[in-house]
């Protein structure tokens, strides 16, 4: 692994973690698609600021871009508040319009703007190590790494300092307002944070893949835990894992690094969706199968209890008859009997007839009454 590879991965990790932290709150606040809107419309801020300062590395660009992000949020809300359009439509109206203006400006003045439209969507993380930060003749590393590192620190600081406010307004906006925290203030401050993060990440991974890094790792983490601090840590960790594995995937097949990072974030999410211990799809299937079996075991016990000692007990309480009377398939009937035997509810006699154990009898009686 060359030093350049190392720098790219370091940047990828920093970008992924700084996106995942505010992303966790976006997912919890059900505003995931605000990240899509913001990451597109910040382009307008960058273009306009560029026209003013004519320097693509000027810090004003970041400020203007972040301001456009907040403007997007405000516009969406203003449009939504007229009650003439729903919130989803408001988002879908605002950011394409702002993005279109930016694209037209770039195309119109393509000659003078060193902004590459492809780079806007794809990001240029592979070139990041070539843009160095030099102070007093010393090489201090990639400029992007410094900027993104500062944004990561800002995110960490904001979340640690305003943890209580963010948590409260996220989970119970009404209570937050009643206790005197202004939800609007928290909301806009938070959206500023999202905008700043999107601007920083935009340079590396492009406007659309920012969304993947902001939403997919926190959504995966959300399936793994119910505790906010753990959710934040897991989001960051899964983001970092996606970044590094994405980098090596891209290396392996010689494809876009940012695209691979997004793809790996998707894989991470898919794995969590399928295999999360409690909330995963597989766990759900197994839980339902087990519940079905347990319920059927009790049914069986009740059935045997019903006929116990009756005139037709020998005929009824056999595995073969269960198919007919409980409408179970032969396979399922055998499975239930095995389950019930394992649980100690049922014992089978020499002639294949089923008997209740003492435990099974008690169980069946109890379940019939409750």
């Amino acid at each position: 692994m060359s030093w350049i590879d190392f720098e790219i991965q370091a940047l990828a990790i920093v970008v992924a973690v700084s996106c995942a932290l505010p992303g966790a709150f976006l997912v919890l606040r059900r505003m995931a698609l605000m990240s899509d809107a913001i990451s597109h419309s910040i382009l307008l801020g960058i273009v306009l600021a560029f026209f003013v300062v004519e320097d693509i590395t000027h810090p004003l660009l970041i400020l203007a871009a972040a301001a456009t992000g907040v403007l997007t949020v405000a516009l969406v809300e203003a449009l939504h508040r007229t009650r003439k359009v729903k919130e989803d439509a408001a988002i879908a109206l605002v950011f394409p319009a702002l993005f279109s203006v930016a694209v037209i400006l770039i195309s119109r003045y393509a000659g003078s703007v060193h902004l590459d439209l492809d780079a806007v969507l794809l990001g240029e993380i592979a070139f990041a190590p070539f843009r160095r930060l030099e102070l007093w003749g010393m090489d201090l590393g990639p400029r992007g790494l410094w900027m993104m590192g500062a944004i990561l620190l800002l995110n960490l600081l904001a979340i640690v300092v305003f943890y209580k406010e963010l948590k409260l307004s996220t989970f119970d906006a009404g209570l937050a307002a009643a206790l005197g925290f202004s939800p609007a203030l928290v909301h806009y401050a938070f959206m500023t944070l999202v905008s700043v993060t999107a601007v920083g990440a935009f340079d590396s991974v492009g406007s659309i893949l920012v969304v993947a890094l902001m939403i997919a790792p926190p959504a995966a983490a959300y399936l793994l835990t119910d505790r906010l601090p753990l959710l934040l840590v897991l989001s960051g960790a899964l983001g970092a894992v996606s970044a590094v594995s994405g980098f090596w995937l891209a290396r392996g097949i010689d494809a876009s690094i940012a695209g691979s990072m997004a793809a790996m974030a998707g894989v991470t999410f898919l794995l969590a969706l399928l295999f999360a211990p409690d909330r995963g799809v597989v766990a759900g299937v197994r839980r339902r199968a087990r519940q079905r079996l347990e319920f059927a075991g009790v049914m069986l016990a009740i059935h045997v209890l019903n006929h116990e000692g009756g005139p037709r007990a020998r005929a009824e309480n056999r595995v073969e008859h269960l198919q007919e009377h409980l409408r179970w398939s032969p396979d399922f009937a055998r499975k239930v009997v095995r389950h019930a035997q394992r649980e100690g509810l049922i014992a089978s006699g020499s002639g294949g007839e089923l008997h209740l154990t003492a435990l099974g009898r008690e169980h069946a009686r109890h379940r019939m009454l409750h």
Partner: protein
Amino acid sequence: MSIGELFSLLLFDYTLRTVALGTAALGAVAGALGCFAVLRRQSLLGDAIAHAALPGIGLAFLLTGSRATPVLVLGAALAGWIGTLFVLWIVRSSRIREDAALGIVLSVFFGVGLVILTFVQRRPTAAQAGLETFLFGQAATLLLRDVLLIASLGGAALVVLALFWKEFKLLSFDPEFGASVGLPVTRVDLLLTSLLVVAIVIGLQAVGVVLISALVVAPAAAARQWTDSLSVMVVLAGFLGALAGVAGSMVSSLGGGIPTGPTIVLVASLAVIISLCFAPRRGLMAGFLRERGTRRRLRVDAVLADLYALAAQHGEATSHAHPVAVLRAMQERRGGLERSLEALESRGLAREVRPGEWCLTKAGVERARTLFLPEVAP
């Protein structure tokens, strides 16, 4: 170039005519089908479908080696459709909400698409040139056969829309009732979503994956302001979409490197702004005028009430005049006293006995009696 020349170009210039026809057909289909997306609060589903289509385009090219539009459109449609199924699956099988599911599908599919496209581009054969036009779209690359493809696929989608009109309407406004009368909700939902997929993928070449969703949402959102009838809304949205398409192609044909897709989106956005402001009943302007009218009427009634109260205190309701200063003192800063008095006078409810002194007329007393408390009657 004058406007007249531009229109003659639209009729006689082959390229512009082709592009305008294509974008108009596209706008009409996207606008009409977009109505259902907007009404069902699925405006951002279009965005997700469009982004999710990208890996389909890349894979279609990778597998067939063909850059023919129908092949790429088929790949895009399949991928977009799979993307929507993913969104549904995620929402149904976990506690992830729709917004996050849309965001994940949108960005991850797009990422996978980029991986495929960059992978394709770095292979030695250079036949892949032009796949990037799908990112921002390039209407100028539309050929007559592309336009025919847009028109035939879009036309087919509109025919299906007409055939299942009742079902789609029921699904959009009251799916629970629909289910209770035996509507196969899931299947109808899938069919409608598939139509949306068609509307989006036929637009990718001209408008691009990033902006096509705006062409689905904006005409519908604009049309919604003018009417409460679904059929009128769908027709109007189709018309606005087509208009945006033609206007966008014309503006970008003026030269100066203005791309078509963003121009179409801006024209459609302009239609939304105009509709929001000036639509007759739902518009902001209409609302403002209505509110002002109500406020003014209430102010006039308040002055009538004041005159009535004075009459109750002083007797001789129709002859004892009261100075404007008194009325102003009773007004509590409502403002517009002179105008309200004139309005009362013109309606024959009050008269100016001497300059600056007013009292009720007989009709005014009657009117006040029906409006206000009878127990303070003079």
